[in-house]
């Protein structure tokens, strides 16, 4: 299990290293505007082919690149209903506080749980390899956090059930 995760993350890292070549590019359609082309998708010549990396049916990563921006969308594994609600709650919580992360998108792309938008400005302010490290670390941390949350909820339920049944004895 750990091996497949390693391979999946390595594949994403290599793809990001190849795809993250961003430069400033003013908008071709509106004067004095500078927009992330990956969001608009009005000029096909400015877009690269999107890359979809699937670990399994439930987990996948979509990397869409353009000349001045890069969008990474993640679908996190959800084994059961409890993981499903915990993932939704947690990722929605993070998305609502996207300004703290700078590169996080407020609303995920349809069909995915969370999305990042990296523009050329972020690319200038931050180092490329550190940015990629952050994204990969974020993915690992999310998985770990959701597993821990699920275990904590089940442990709490067990303790409360024990306390309830003690009253009958």
């Amino acid at each position, binding site marked *: 299990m750990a091996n497949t995760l390693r391979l999946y993350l390595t594949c994403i890292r290599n793809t990001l290293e190849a795809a993250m070549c961003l430069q400033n590019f003013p908008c071709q359609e509106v004067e004095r505007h500078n927009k992330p082309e990956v969001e608009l998708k009005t000029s096909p010549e400015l877009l690269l082919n999107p890359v979809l990396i699937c670990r399994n049916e439930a987990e996948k990563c979509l990397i869409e690149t353009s000349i001045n921006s890069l969008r990474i969308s993640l679908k996190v594994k959800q084994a059961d*209903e*409890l993981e*499903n*609600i*915990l993932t939704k*709650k*947690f990722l929605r*919580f*993070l998305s609502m*506080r996207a300004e*703290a*992360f*700078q590169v996080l998108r407020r609303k995920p792309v349809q069909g995915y749980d969370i999305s990042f938008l990296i523009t050329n400005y972020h690319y200038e*302010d*931050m*180092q490329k390899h*550190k*940015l990629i*490290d*952050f994204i990969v*670390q*974020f993915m690992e*941390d999310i998985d770990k*956090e959701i597993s821990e*949350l699920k275990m*904590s*909820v*089940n442990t*709490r*339920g*067990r303790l*409360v*059930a*024990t306390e*309830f*049944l003690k*009253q*009958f*004895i």
Partner: protein
Amino acid sequence: MACFERASPALKDILLKLYRAEKPMEIDHHLYEFGSVQYHIQSSASDPHHTYLSISTPLLSQGALLSDRLSHATIEMIKGVGSNAVDIVEPAKEGYHLTLRLNFSKIPRDKDSVQVITQISAVQAVIISSQLKEMLQNVNSQVTLHGMHKPIKLVYHPREPFFVIRQPQKIIAVFPMRFKENSDVIIATAFFQELMDVGSSQEWAKAPPCIWSPIPPPELRGETFEDLSTNGGFVSFDIYSRHVEGERLDKTVWSLLNFYAYVKSHVKCTRGFVQRRMRKRLESLVKVLQKVSSEEELEEEEEEEKFGKDKDVGCNYMRKLVSLSNSKILKRRHGVLSRKIKRIRFRIKIHGFGRFRRRWLRFPKFSSSMGYTKLD
């Protein structure tokens, strides 16, 4: 949690204060507690021996019949509370189900006094438990009753009815669970599964067996659609005679009556726990990004310092090579400054204006004490 205690903590505090008071006190308190319970405590200096306690509580009603009076069995149980110190006042005060006259002088002044006052503070629990106690006390009764296996619907809180079904060797208590949000349903379902797992283990064999199912149990067939439509499934407890022997009867009854409140409290606490955990994780994730940014800033500063030192060395070397007096340096700076000002002031060039300016717009020279001007 205060709402799961049999004795009301606020009422107990007030009664203890009255009991321990050296002088008679004037008190007129209204207390409102979880579960629509109201208390009214009155004590006056003119009647120092007696305190009046009125109680209003939602009564356990059976099916569609709403009960607003206490049954005979309930009144008998209340008479057993507080020994001689408690008398029931008939009729009860308006708006209340029961009024008690308390005589603190009849409570013995020893260790048991606190226990007696705790029993008096738990009168509300006695009222609501009495009906269910009566049912559970007849678990092993051989008397066949009309409609023995028909479920009895009991309503303590509105919209939270539960069913009690009598069987030959046991009584089954069935709780239809309903929640407002989908996430509550999932958290509660995880809790019910843990409850089933813990209850079925060897060390908890003495506790009543617990079963959760998403569909209504077969014993509830024939009940109305409204009662059987739930989103949280059905939780059933099998109560045997060993669970209602002696002191266990009180505990069993109280646990069953507060089951809904217990589950809802657990769901709410779990949601709060998840929220706190997420907030803590957010801080740690943001710190990673801030660390990345600060590492880059540190690297930039290091680079600046490195090149900055070299620049200083170069400048010092150059300064040593070119030695200038202070007055010459000042003159050079003045010249640069005055040229800048002229450029700003005279941006617009007019042909011939320079000659005009030099002839007619000269600044007058002022005489100084250092030199002298030649007079014509």
